[in-house]
């Protein structure tokens, strides 16, 4: 456990260093606006943001600040620190991502279970066709079409921004769609497979109700691949939230990330990248531990 935590720390440090190195290679500056600035004023700005220091010094400064939890000032949002911006944006991103995760899990598991009841049957056919469709329609199509249909034409939901619960409905469904399909497919396969296993057949022959068989004997086994899929799922959802935040104008960190990348706001890009990396690492770590807890084979090994 200590070992794993140590490895986690090293991985994080490597990633963070990579991010810093990559960004400082980037050309161009962050200070250009609609109105140009004279060179002497740009020099003043560079000095104010310590961009005039040698690179190693900048790196050490940034790393020391990072370890103290300080991500520095934002170039493009001068009145806010990167910490403040992330503090504003992260809850929104987590809410959308979390909602999408829950929606994807619930709909995926239900659809997968239904489809697994009679593989090759009519229900299975319909569900798997929908699944394949869901996998082929990315957020960049689903989100704008959802706005067009449900916000502009039908006016059931707001077209963007936040404020009420209704604002979150379209974004989280749009972000969940492809992952709901992926989970349905995965879950269906796992359920079909475990239905064939010896103890399940025995349990069935004992006359246990179908629901009980599923709940007691099938789901525990089928959930193993699902849990190990949660890591990639979280990374994927993160990508998904970037799109929906952009399309629905949600004030989350994904939109900051894209805006900052387009405008060369180094500190903000780095800050968000660090937060993303930390979240994914932490999530994978938890998934890993959970997996070890629920997988009987793993438990025996350790």
């Amino acid at each position, binding site marked *: 456990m200590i070992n794993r935590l140590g490895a986690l720390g090293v*991985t994080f440090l490597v990633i963070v260093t990579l991010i810093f190195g990559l960004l400082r290679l980037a050309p161009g500056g962050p200070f250009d606006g609609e109105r140009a600035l004279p060179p002497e004023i740009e020099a003043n700005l560079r000095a104010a943001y310590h961009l005039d220091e040698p690179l190693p010094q900048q790196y050490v400064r940034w790393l020391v600040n990072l370890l103290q939890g300080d991500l520095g000032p934002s170039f493009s949002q001068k009145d806010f620190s990167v910490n403040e911006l992330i503090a504003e944006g992260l809850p929104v991103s987590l809410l959308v991502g979390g909602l999408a995760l829950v929606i994807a899990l619930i709909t995926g598991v239900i659809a997968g279970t239904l489809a697994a009841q009679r593989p090759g049957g009519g229900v299975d056919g319909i569900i798997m066709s929908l699944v394949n469709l869901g*996998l082929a329609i990315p957020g*960049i*199509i689903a989100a704008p079409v959802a706005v067009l249909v449900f916000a502009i034409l039908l006016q059931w939901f707001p077209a963007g921004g936040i404020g009420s619960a209704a604002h979150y409905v379209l974004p989280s469904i749009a972000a969940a769609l492809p992952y709901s399909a992926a989970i349905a497919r995965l879950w269906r396969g796992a359920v079909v497979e475990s239905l064939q296993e010896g103890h399940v057949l025995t349990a069935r022959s004992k006359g246990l109700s179908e629901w009980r068989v599923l709940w007691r004997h099938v789901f525990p086994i089928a959930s193993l691949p699902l849990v190990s899929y949660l890591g990639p799922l979280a990374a994927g959802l993160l990508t998904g939230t970037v799109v929906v935040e952009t399309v629905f104008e949600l004030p989350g960190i994904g939109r900051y990330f894209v805006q900052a*990348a387009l405008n060369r706001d180094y500190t903000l890009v780095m800050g968000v990248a660090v937060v993303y990396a930390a979240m994914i690492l932490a999530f994978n770590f938890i998934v890993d531990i959970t997996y070890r807890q629920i997988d009987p084979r793993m438990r025996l090994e350790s």
Partner: protein
Amino acid sequence: MTSRLKQVFAGSVFAAIASITLFSVILFTLLGPSLSGWTAEEVDWDALETPPDDRHHLGTDLVGRDLFTRIAEGGQLSLGIALLATGISVLIGVPWGALAGYVGGRTDQWMMRFVDTLYALPFILVVILIVVVVGRNTWALFAGLGAVYWLDIARIVRGQAIRVRSAAYIQAARSMGASTRWIVIRHVLPNVAGPAFIYATLTVPGIILAESFLSFLGLGVQEPDASWGVLIADGTASMESAPWTLLFPAAFLATTVWSLNLLGDRLRDAWDPKRTRT
């Protein structure tokens, strides 16, 4: 292999539909530009943002460019990038996985730990960082995508290589004093080629989606070049006044990804009986 191919298509209408669709899309992207009578950058000042008609079969965009041509050329770019990036990911992933799996031990451990570390990073992060650094050009884009997508292939190939390692003929070759390099090239690589090919097939739609995603956000392919992602982004901006600018590119992207996914899955099922549909 032929029996497996048969299995892919056996009794499935969908597989047939998917292959025909894919074939038509490829044909369309290759021949489309010469059929339309317009070039992708030509501006028809008399037809700004017009719906499909005899002059422009799929309508025009906001600046009066022929959508039929642009979707075809965009398809060339989207598919081309996906194929090239997949190629890169195979070039990195196959040797990496084969070596790790065959050599085993500490080397394997370190090589796979590296893969796991990269796995922990969301691909979007890496690609956006690469794009920010290298600047937004098409080459950087697919280099970045290839550099991220080799991980899956490396994992699959490693698993296969471990299986091959203990095979009798390799043990024999080793006892006869063959070098590691010779064994990897002569025996391991040919044996992992099948699964590598299948996973590459599944990588293609993934990269098409990734490219469209980046282009949509303005980080991928740049005007005046068009990829499907660029066209969808354009279409989103004018979806209300000109819905066809969104619907046509979206339909092409979705059907292509659908066909590739379906064929890839079938290939995989045929190769790996454990995953076969019951």
